[in-house]
């Protein structure tokens, strides 16, 4: 379900060079798709299409195992 008035274009369709950046080693690029608490932002907020949202979630979960991204962050202490 899309929110009324939210017309965002998928960033991976505008720039096809960004598709190579979907990798667990590129944690600085993947930081744009998580919140301050470390949660994954849903697709109907960012405007990413379903196929690339699936690739992003798998890579974020791999990066969490290697301690490149956090599992959970308490915003009160940081």
């Amino acid at each position, binding site marked *: 379900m899309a929110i009324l008035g939210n017309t965002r274009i998928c960033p991976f369709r505008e720039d096809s060079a960004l598709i190579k950046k979907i990798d667990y*080693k590129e944690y600085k690029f993947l930081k744009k798709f998580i919140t301050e608490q470390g949660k994954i932002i849903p697709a109907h907020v960012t405007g990413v299409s379903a196929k690339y949202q699936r690739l992003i979630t798998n890579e974020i979960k*791999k990066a969490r*195992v*290697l*301690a*490149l*991204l*956090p*599992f959970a962050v308490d915003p009160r202490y940081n």
Partner: protein
Amino acid sequence: MNYYETVYIIHPALQEGRLNDIVTKIHNKLEKLKGEILYIDNWGKKKLSYQIDKQKYGTYILCQYSLNCQDIKDISQELELNPNILRYLTTKINEPDIKEGSNKLEISKVVETENNKFSNKDKQDINKEENNKSIIHDKKIDKKDEIDKN
């Protein structure tokens, strides 16, 4: 022969000579199993986003190689039994994803990255503790507070 890559984290207290010993152990085992090493890289000492075995820092190493599919268990077993290696992750890759670079690794100095240096927040906290100690010397400090700080 399929193409794989591993990233593993080593305990931060090991430097130079001992680091090379661990890396050469894994290379010798790879060559015994008739595999080829294609790319090695050392990312240096980084700060972890959460503590692993009560350690806050760790050195990352990336390795790309080719192997038979039946020999992966032997390498992952060696990475798991070594107590100096904190974590590892192996994935399968395609041929065009292999990077171009050096084949051998020689660690001579500690690589400083952005996260290795102390941030300004740590310096301010240290100054606050010193200031508080000079003010509080008249009061009696409970033993519980000292244990909680440390």
